[in-house]
């Protein structure tokens, strides 16, 4: 049994220790926007926020989030609304198949929260998600347009 905050809601899940957070979110909490890509933390499709920091949920044991706050793509913006990163993703028509994009959006949202105008070096070192459709050009463009709007 694990107690934590999921998308702002106090949540108790009956799940065995050692289970990756990913599967608890997808199966017990029935939030399937967070994706399974590799199970070894290599692709980033499963990225969520743990106390505001981007983590790869497929290698995050569920017991490690006890008492903490987890945000998934479903909880990134208030219900019915969109986070600025999601808006930019629509504006720039970033996704293709879209499967990796929940993870990319979560990673980018966490980065911009800390560093609203990241340098190329920071960006490339931080956003290491794999997109098989090859949307990197638009990911970069959307981040740049977000960074511009936050500049003084």
């Amino acid at each position, binding site marked *: 049994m694990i107690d934590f905050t999921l998308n702002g809601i106090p949540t108790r899940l009956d799940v065995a220790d050692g289970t990756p957070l990913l*599967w608890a979110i997808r199966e017990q909490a029935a939030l399937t926007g967070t994706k399974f*890509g590799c199970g070894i933390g290599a692709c980033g499709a499963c990225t969520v926020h743990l106390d505001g920091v981007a983590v790869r949920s497929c290698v995050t044991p569920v017991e490690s989030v006890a008492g903490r706050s987890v945000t998934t793509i479903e909880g990134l913006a208030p219900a019915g609304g969109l986070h600025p990163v999601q808006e930019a993703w629509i504006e720039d028509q970033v996704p293709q198949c879209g499967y990796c994009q929940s993870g990319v959006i979560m990673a980018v949202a966490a980065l911009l929260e800390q560093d609203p105008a990241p340098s190329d070096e920071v960006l490339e070192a931080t956003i290491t998600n794999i997109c098989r459709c090859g949307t990197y050009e638009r990911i970069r463009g959307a981040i740049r347009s977000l960074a511009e709007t936050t500049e003084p």
Partner: protein
Amino acid sequence: MADDDRSVEETGRPAGDDDGAETEGKRGPLGKWTRRAFIGTGALAGGGLVLGVGGVVFAPNRMRIGPESEGGTGQLTTWIKITPDNDVIVSIPHCEMGQGALTGIAMMMAEELEADWSLVRIEESPPEDHFANGYIVRAFVDETGFSVPGWFQRAFDYASYKAMDVAGMQVTGGSTSTRGTGQYGLRVAGAAAKEMLLQAAAATFDAPLSELTARDSRITHGPSGRSATFGELATLAATMKVPNDPVMKPRDQYRLVGTSQNRHDIPSKVAGAAQYGIDVTLPDMLYAAIAASPVPGGQLSEVDEAPATSMAGVHEVVRLTEAVAVVADGYWQASQALAALTPRFTDDGRGTANTESIYAAHVAALDEKGPGQPSRDAAKTVSVEYRVPYLAHATMEPMSATARIANGRCEVWAGTQDPLNARRTAARAADLDVSDVVMHNQQLGGGFGRRLPFTFDYIEQAVHVAKSVSPRPVKLIWSREEDMQHDYYRPFVVARLRTDLDAEGRPLSWASRFTGSRLADGGAARPPYEIDDIDVSAAAPPVHLRTGSWRSVQYSQHGFFVESFIDELAHEAGRDPVEYRAALLSHEPRHLAALQRAADMADWGGPLAEGRGRGIAIVEAFGTIVAEVAEVSVEADNSIRVHRFDAAVDCGLVVNPQQALAQIQGGITFGLSAALYHEITVRNGAVEQRSFPDYPMIQLSNAPRVNVEFIASDAAIGGLGEPGVPPVAPAVANAVFALTGQRLRTLPLRLA
């Protein structure tokens, strides 16, 4: 291809529905065909118009497509509904896997219909027989350069529809959706619907057609200023004669096609709400993990179930012919229990194969072919060997399918590139009639050819597991490792290229001998260049890993061979690679224009930063010509880095420019991961690679800047999902040669 021979009567259409007066039209040159119901019409329950295009009516009339009388759904063969409240609902028999085809096809329809784009809603056709998509065959035929005579086109469309229908295919692949279904299907349907709406308006306003204008989902009578919406006219329009040959707009009058429009599927994807196959959740559902024989063709010989069945949450160990699966309350429990097993598999006598023995077998097959005859006037002969490895698709969403068998019926949920064929696969696995199987197609987390028909092993497995746990539904998820090691791989190919050059270095002949199929690959192996004597031939080696279509299929290998080899010849002749190609393309003005445009974009011949090199390649595939220039450097660790790509694309018609751009950008990235990193190798009969660390992908940090320009052209519309891929590897290899003098003839590209 067809795995049964169902007659038309069994496809769910009534056998004798020949309301002859309605469909028995004029007889064409074939004597017994009619075009009348090529486009068919019907009334929508509650008012409105339904218009569909299913193919030509082909005598005898009972073979007619278009089940107006079928069960009162109001849905004709496919495609357009106009509701009384003025919505246009378009049903498109293709899947969405990020290529944006559904939005583009709907735009083509709306353009001809003169619909208000904001009122158009897009639906993916359900996997039912009458949504089989034969129009894509026309795209393939166009691509070969064989044109269907006008008088035969509709009969041809019908025949290809029937071929797809009887084979049970509703396929999305071959870069055909827009140029097939869009060009020959929905565009025509949109024009026909507009004409019927105009007829309805003429009757309503008692005005001649010449005084009526359709625009933005409204028809206006100029002199009186009266107008009515499509929705208001739709019910009457449904009673109008269906035009045989609706008038199409010339391209220069397009107002919607050619403008960038947002894709309909993106909002749900950024919200995390889009439902992919792997996301399907059903009440009472179980989860399954699976391990199939590591050696292709192997079978499960023994497994001690105890280590799994003693674990919490585990329901069952299921033994399949070629695999063992574990069913549990959750996927993590299932996968952990599976990992606790030590199943043994037979190896079908193939357990000693490795990449070296596979290569040797290919070489032996080519050796049997022997060398060709040299040209008598040759000043020099150049003869080289190229090689490309097996490649995995590695879609981001691993293979997954959910199945439920209950009450003599089977339901399947999965993302596929062909739900009709998937349904048939499920029926066979369930030992049920196709009519007892329901397929629910989902969003695809990438396709690239992995989710095409006849590669539905994951659906077969899910159905077999569902039998064991019936009536409960079960979701089967492949691990990334299972996915990497049980793909239908891009074929391993060895090619020997040879040319005889005259004294000026011009090729007198070109011979390509490769492993594969001359029928399937021969077109891609032929260079576009003006060479008198071109000879392509193939040898079929024993196949170890099962193979399938991989984004751009045969062009991905042969584009590399042809465009690398022509580059070798340019250097052999001491000529600039662009100039050398151009001199051999005077008979192909579209190629020439694309080549020159890409060179201009890249400032070909202009100054380069220290340590950079440029290379060019041009490939026509799927009706589209793409020329690409790569700019590369060599890193301190001797790896190749690509900084920039410039691509010039002639696809005839650009329907949705921002999506056309996305497809080329994505295709270049996809091709670059393969060119630089990807290689599936075999050891002891099994695939060695397991996951992304040993099958790495281009990421943000090493993705090149990609510039793309589309060349305005009045040529036939070409595909876009795949043509960006083939020039990538040769452009990079040619750039590496320009920079280092090393000619890399094996993929992935690795410097000595």
